[in-house]
């Protein structure tokens, strides 16, 4: 697993042991208070703020923390801790989904780097809209005629497009450390772009093929 974030080690207020996550103490099970907004997703899992993460280590950490804070195990005898445990579990699930999904993770890193947000900058590469319209027509035609082979062909093309966008997103997200504004804007454009591919992929009925969203 990656090294913990560079903040001084947290100690549990109950048992005074070091905590590997600010959300709860995995030694004594004490639950933390919810902060006013939310936890830092990286700090919560005790991993470095980098685009490249080890998904297995993240998953393992997620399961360990779930065992400490999930309401089924942490509500206490008379359920007195239920509300706290519910809120923390929802927060853990949010943070896990943010880091697990490459697009959500890049989006999160971009927001930590100062944006722009999707509401502030909706630009996409010029040629994209024409391509999207073309794909949409192909999907509608194939659906109307029940042509599953054509649908699968479109799906393959779209998966390829999305893969390209994801590769670009990864490169740009790794370059966020420089703080370069142009880099951030280009990342924004790619994140906007991948949404179009995902929306199109969602319109194709499932065929049992795997890896629709990587």
């Amino acid at each position, binding site marked *: 697993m990656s090294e913990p974030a560079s903040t001084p080690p947290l100690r549990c207020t109950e048992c005074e042991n070091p905590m590997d996550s600010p959300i709860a103490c995995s030694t004594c099970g004490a639950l933390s208070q919810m902060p006013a907004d939310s936890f830092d997703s990286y700090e919560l899992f005790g991993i470095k703020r980098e685009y490249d993460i080890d998904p297995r280590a993240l998953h*393992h950490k997620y399961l360990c923390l779930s065992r400490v804070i999930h*309401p*089924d195990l942490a509500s206490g005898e008379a359920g007195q801790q239920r509300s706290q445990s519910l809120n923390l579990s929802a927060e853990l699930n949010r943070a896990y989904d943010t880091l697990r999904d490459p697009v959500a993770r890049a989006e999160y890193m971009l927001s930590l780097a100062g944006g722009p947000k999707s509401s502030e900058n909706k630009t996409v590469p010029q040629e994209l809209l024409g391509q999207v319209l073309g794909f949409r027509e192909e999907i509608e035609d194939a659906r109307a005629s029940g042509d599953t082979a054509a649908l699968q062909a479109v799906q393959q093309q779209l998966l390829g497009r999305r893969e390209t966008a994801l590769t670009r997103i990864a490169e740009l997200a790794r370059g966020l450390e420089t703080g370069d504004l142009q880099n951030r804007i280009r990342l924004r454009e790619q994140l906007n772009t991948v949404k179009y591919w995902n929306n199109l992929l969602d319109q194709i009925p499932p065929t049992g093929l795997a890896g629709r*969203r990587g």
Partner: protein
Amino acid sequence: MGDTTDIVIGIDLGTTHSLVAVCDESGPRVLRDATGEGRVPSCLTFGLDGKVTVGWEARNHAIENPTSTVFSIKRLMGRGFDELEHDGELAQLPYAVVKRASSETGRDIPAVRIGDRLLTPPEISAVILRDLKRRAETQLGRAVRKAVITVPAYFDDGQRQATRDAGRIAGLEVLRIVNEPTAAALAYGLGVRGQIDGQETKTQPLLKLSGQCSTSDCGCPHSAHHDADSEESTIAVYDLGGGTFDISILRLVEGVFEVLSTHGNTRLGGDDFDRQIIHLVEREVKQQFGLDIQSPATRQALRGLAENVKIRLSSEPSASFEIDLGSNRVYRRTITRGELEVMLAPWIERTIESCRHALADARVDPSQISQVVLVGGSTRTPLVRSRVEEVFGRKPYTALNPDEVVALGAAVQAGILAGTRRDALLLDVVPLSLGIETLGGAMGKLILRNTRIPCQATERFSTFADGQTNVKINVLQGERELARDCRSLGMFELRGVPPMPAGIPKILVTFLIDENGILNVSAREERSGQEAGIQIVPTHGLTQDEVKRMELESYAHAREDMTAHRLIDLRNQITFDTDKTEQMLARVGDRLGPGERAAIEQAIRDLRGKAETLTDADALHNALIAFDRNTVRLAELAITATLQETLNQEKR
């Protein structure tokens, strides 16, 4: 401790059958009747004297009491009268369902009419739950107040709430609503004593459920899951019951049952298979004899016949039957398995379509599925088995009785909540997207389907008019783009918004879906930081007050209908126990201290007094248990004395 910790029962509240199970140190077990049958038909009949009968007896008398015998009530839970009528659901039923009058607009709740009584689906379900509760109390010899109840994974918020309401009306604290396929996975994954090929199997996981920290230095103190190899397995649970279908894809790793996705249909099950046969018979009788056989009594009779034919065709290539229509007219028919399969194929294909959706949402390829588990009685249908095998490319796994596995899983989850076992954890998902109606009637999604629960989303609301103090929000669940195509869960009305110019108040509303898949809404005015009042009018559900009132009513009925004989049983037991204690006192009372002896004599008087005055069976039951506990030492002395006497006799 012992008696003071509440026991938690696990209940599978099914469309056609229900079961109750408990979990102790030796594992989960289904509570059975004297003949060894665990299933209780989810069927009840109201006698002319107002007495309610539940289970096999009710089912066996369905033809005599066609309009007062209620079955398949689960298909009505949490749904509106209008939609049920629109879907043709009500036309199939021999009993009468009406729209319940409501003073509030926008509400639409069905009710079953029995004589002059109107009973909502949660009240009907509560009767079944109370019967299961009593079965558990009789067999465990103690009061039961807490339960885990299972629901189809694809149940929406309204259907889940209705199930929880049913539990409350039955006098049960519902600790957890668990999804049926998830419960089944828990039973399979944690190992239950089952019967495989007639042989008792050991308590060990039937599925590979192993895992180890993928990193050696994880700081994770939970050693229970640090053994075995680090493999994880992905399983599919295909659950086709009497009235509902679910498919769930789960990952089993490190003792955690992680649901990756779920899909289903809450109106597809064995009931629909039966209906295909019923429709065929009705059609042909009409063609051949010009007869309409749609009276409530014939419908009840046909239901039994159709189910029987369907079950026979699971093991035989054809099934013959005849119906005597009177006046020397006899309808004779032989249905082949092939013929039935043609009728069932469209229904089964719909379940396969759901499987594809679930796999896609889980981002899992069929080849990555290491085990397909079949749950629910309808999975005995050969066509179901062969189609599932084709789609997943492997033989489905059926080691546990498909009728009982959900109840066993519910009992395991009950054990987890009661703290008797901490080795497992369920992480489930919300089956349907949750959102709100936005301007123009669109569905604005806030939480996407298959998001892990608990989860939450927040949304800011404001006012449209100057001085407006109330804001109404229509909360929706579903995947369609327009609000009118989704299910409305209810109108949430924010009250007490400070009067300000339009658009100035900022109300932050939090939608939290809890571990039961049930929505909790809270609101806060951001400027003042004050909690805003929020009133919920459930579209197809009951309000808190209604549930409370029904619980009291049902409590009253329950006392009259069912508790009478429990009181009699308890009083007999008290007479027996107190007499026996007096005899023991006479024999070995001198071995007790004087204070001890006086206390027991007083306890005997108290308990006899209570037996005469108390009418609350639970309280009387507790008094009896306390009495028995306080006389344990005396009983031990009496046994010792008997042993000594026996020994002395042998010596002579």
